[in-house]
């Protein structure tokens, strides 16, 4: 219940924060993952840099046809953002499926994504959205595709001195429907499996399919084979089932008390079909 001692700084500017990180401090965003770990003494950072007070990382804005979400934007802000609900509803829907009200009020997209819990919700949406992550260090500023960002469980492309500055997602084109379907862990509320689907229809045919998968394995991914199987089709129930059947192919599925690898794999298929079906219905 009681964390170990640490030094705490709440810098006013991003640059100041980045300098501290360069010197070895660890970032604290909403704290929803880090603080419980510290209380159980599974994590013991010596110096925490609180990013929560950086006003310049809390924003949702549209520029050049893309949406930019500052790293310290909370799940609740994303869930209720009128602009996201209209232009990137998948992200808002995903945010609404995270944790509970209190967690969504404090937890941030940057913190969650950087933590890279294999059962987290955002990674599915970020994969499906082909999101980009703007990473910033004291001396670096780079853009990494979501596809390259997640390396393994709790491991990302972030360098020790870098933070996520913002998440970049597309404005959905007309005719696009999206859906996030998740099997909730009964105790923690995390995703046993979560599937984010985007389907775009053009002239009656499915022109684009994107499927992001989380919870199944240590690394969230895009189910490219399944996507291809559905593109160009009309979207019949059989076609969707056939495509969904491919989402877990060849994936090294996780197994735990609540779901064996076999069951997880099966759930991925079921939820992919449901997500695709719902997304397709929403293209109208």
């Amino acid at each position, binding site marked *: 219940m009681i964390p170990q001692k640490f030094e705490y700084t709440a810098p006013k500017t991003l640059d100041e924060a980045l300098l501290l990180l360069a010197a070895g401090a660890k970032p604290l965003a909403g704290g929803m993952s880090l603080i419980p770990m510290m209380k159980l003494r599974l994590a013991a950072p010596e110096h925490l840099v609180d990013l929560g007070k950086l006003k310049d990382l809390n924003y949702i804005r549209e520029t050049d046809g893309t949406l930019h979400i500052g790293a310290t934007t909370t799940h609740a802000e994303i869930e209720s953002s009128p602009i996201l609900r209209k232009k990137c509803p998948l992200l808002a829907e995903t945010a609404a499926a995270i944790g509970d009200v209190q967690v969504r009020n404090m937890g941030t997209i940057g913190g969650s994504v950087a933590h890279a819990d294999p059962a987290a919700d955002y990674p599915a949406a970020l994969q499906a959205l082909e999101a980009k992550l703007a990473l910033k260090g004291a001396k670096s500023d780079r853009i990494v595709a979501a596809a390259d960002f997640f390396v393994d469980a709790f491991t990302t492309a972030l360098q020790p001195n870098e933070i996520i500055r913002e998440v970049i997602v597309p404005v959905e084109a007309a005719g696009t429907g999206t859906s996030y379907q998740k099997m909730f862990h*009964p105790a*923690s509320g995390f995703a046993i499996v979560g599937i984010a689907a985007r389907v775009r229809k053009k002239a009656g045919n499915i022109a684009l399919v994107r499927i992001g998968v989380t919870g199944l394995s240590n690394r969230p991914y895009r189910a490219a084979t399944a996507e291809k199987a559905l593109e160009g089709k009309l979207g019949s129930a059989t076609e969707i089932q056939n495509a969904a059947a491919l989402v877990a192919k060849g994936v090294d599925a996780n197994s735990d008390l609540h779901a064996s690898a076999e*069951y997880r794999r099966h759930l991925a298929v*079921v939820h992919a079909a449901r997500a695709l079906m719902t997304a397709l219905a929403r293209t109208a």
Partner: protein
Amino acid sequence: MATTMTQTETFVGKRVRRREDPRLITGTATYVEDIQMPGMHYAVIVRSPHAAARIRSIKTKQAEAAPGVVAVYTGKDTERVGPVPCGASLPGLRVPHHHVLATDRVYFVGHPVAVVVATDRYLARDAADLVEVDYDVLPAVADPEKALAKGAPAVHPEWPDNTAFTFHQEGGDVDKAFAEADLVVKQRMTSQRLIPMALETRGVVAEWRGADRQLNLYTSTQIPHLVRTLVAQMLSLEENRMRVVTPEVGGGFGSKLNVYAEEALMGFVAMKINKPVKWIESRRENFLCTIHGRGHVDYYEVAAKRDGTILGIKLKIIQDLGAYHQLLTPAIPTLSVLMMPGLYKTKNVRADIVGVFTNCMPTDAYRGAGRPEATHGIERMVDLLADELKMDPAEIRLKNFVGKDEFPYATATGLMYDSGDYAAPLKKALEIVGYQKLRQEQIEARKQGKWMGIGISTYGEICAIGPSPATPAGGWESATVKIEPSGKVTVMTGACPHGQGEETTFAQITADELGVGLDDVLVIRGDTAIVQYGIGTFGSRATAIGGTALYFALQDLKAKIKKFGAMLLESEDVTFSAGQVTCNRTGKSKSLQEIAGASYRALKLPPETEPGLLATRFWEPPNFTFPFGAHIVVSDIDGETGQIKIRRYVAVDDCGNMINPLLVDGQVHGGVAQGLGQALWEQVVYDDNGQLVTGELMDYAVPRAHMMPWIENDHTTTPSPVNPLGVKGVGEAGTIGCSPAVVNSVVDALSPLGVRHIDMPLTPEKIWKLIAGGN
């Protein structure tokens, strides 16, 4: 002048809102953790990370030198503190010596090894990391059936068979019944280990007043007086030098019906350091080191005639006891045996229990304590029998119920069921749920490939525990009623409610008997320095026994009030009602307030009557009470994921007369939630090394608001003849009735696949596997 005291309104039977709530909803109640004292110290306990190990050495120097630390104690220091007590006795019971701190060996993960005491809780926690314990890790066994196997690691080296006791009970002629049977159904089933998970973890504040030789122990318990008697013994302290205070208690469910090592340990620490000390259990510790519930493996055999008549029952229980006996550990499965016939007439039963040591936290009483296991067993077996005979599950129950004209009914296990009309709640529940229509719907649903189930459970339970010969510590309860000189009424109950609401229901009883308002009554509990000796709150006993003690104390007072009234009115022909003694001839009356004043002023006394208005009664019940009811669950299963949705939950409970139906409903809802938790989500998992896999709320799934169905609850009322209030008890009914209804419903849904039984919890994966395998 005393009109404000006179009350014609009555309260018993009404949905009165609770009198304890104002402090709870404003955040001003005092739980143990809220207690602050000058010079308070804080204790953190160092616990074993291993399920079985020899302790080679413990180094405390570094911890002792850490900032704020005043002392570190290990098992060597506490060797003379008496063992953690087991109150249950069974023939041949093996009782391992249960030190408050481990001495040379640890027996389960979480076993207390040392205690660090500091001036600040953060510093105490820091220093706990500095205690170095060198362990020689030994093989452990965490599963009771594995523990019984040849060559299993011995939990206690002196008993290599890991058997703490065996117990046999038999009634009627079982062999004859089975020989004459047309069929026998058999099933192995489990009632898994559960974590009680009271929202307030345990906590203790101990204060030693050396000059007075007085130990004040504030502890979150259901049994303050028993804690005083037993902890005083452990500490070799005179019992009258010890005061146990139970402030607000944040839930117990049986987990605080115990005496724990930490209670004596904090007393020991306070006496050593001569300062108050506080220990608050973390949730992780609560999962590891507060008793668990259930832990049964049951082997059932039921013999029956082709017409559905149950002839006999055989039951073998393998009870996972854990590493030690806590207060009632070995007694819990014997309660299952008592209830094994359920509501059915069979006179032929045979039960065998094997109590097994494992390298786990001890099991003990958790809501229902033995009765949910028994009810789950018999209610599953009756469904299996119905399935075998192609009978309707409602019909087979109605056929075998003890008839309503057969009470009091002597059971094959030696109980005397007090009163009942078992068909009534079942028929009512069937009507509420619309049973026939649902069966029609089910036929249609099956044609469409849908998985829909209807499950019935008709339960009985032993409540109002209980007559003293049947309990380890005395089965009575006490009450004192004082009418103060102003006429205000103070009730002191030996029961120790911790959420059940007796501050309200006891005020209702008192107000009605004395004809005063609810606001004129104050109910005090949970302080051994104020309240006469009592037993406590558990086993659905507080109202049935504690309320009855109160009722009789009130009758004593009423007689005395009448005497004073008669004296003041100078008439022998008087009546006491609505807070007034009235002369039946003149119509003149004296208020309770006037009488109370006169009784203390004592200018004149009735013949052979002492001043004052105070009465104490200790009431010994002649029997248990036996509530009953019927729960029906309609479930829909998602065939793709195996997820179960409870569409309808109907509960019709008969707990005898209801003092406050609002509170009765609350007890049923809460009980159902815990039953549903066991049926669908909750399970304690230890791995083969005895590590607790479900060690946090991250992994142990308790029901949340969005997981619960709406509960349609109703009642039938069959008063108990055991007590004058006619009440039976309702604290555990919901839990006992629930789990078999859920499992029966899901098995019913999957019966087209040939599914006969599923062990709890019914996880989606289990269900999916059955469906996927069956298709």
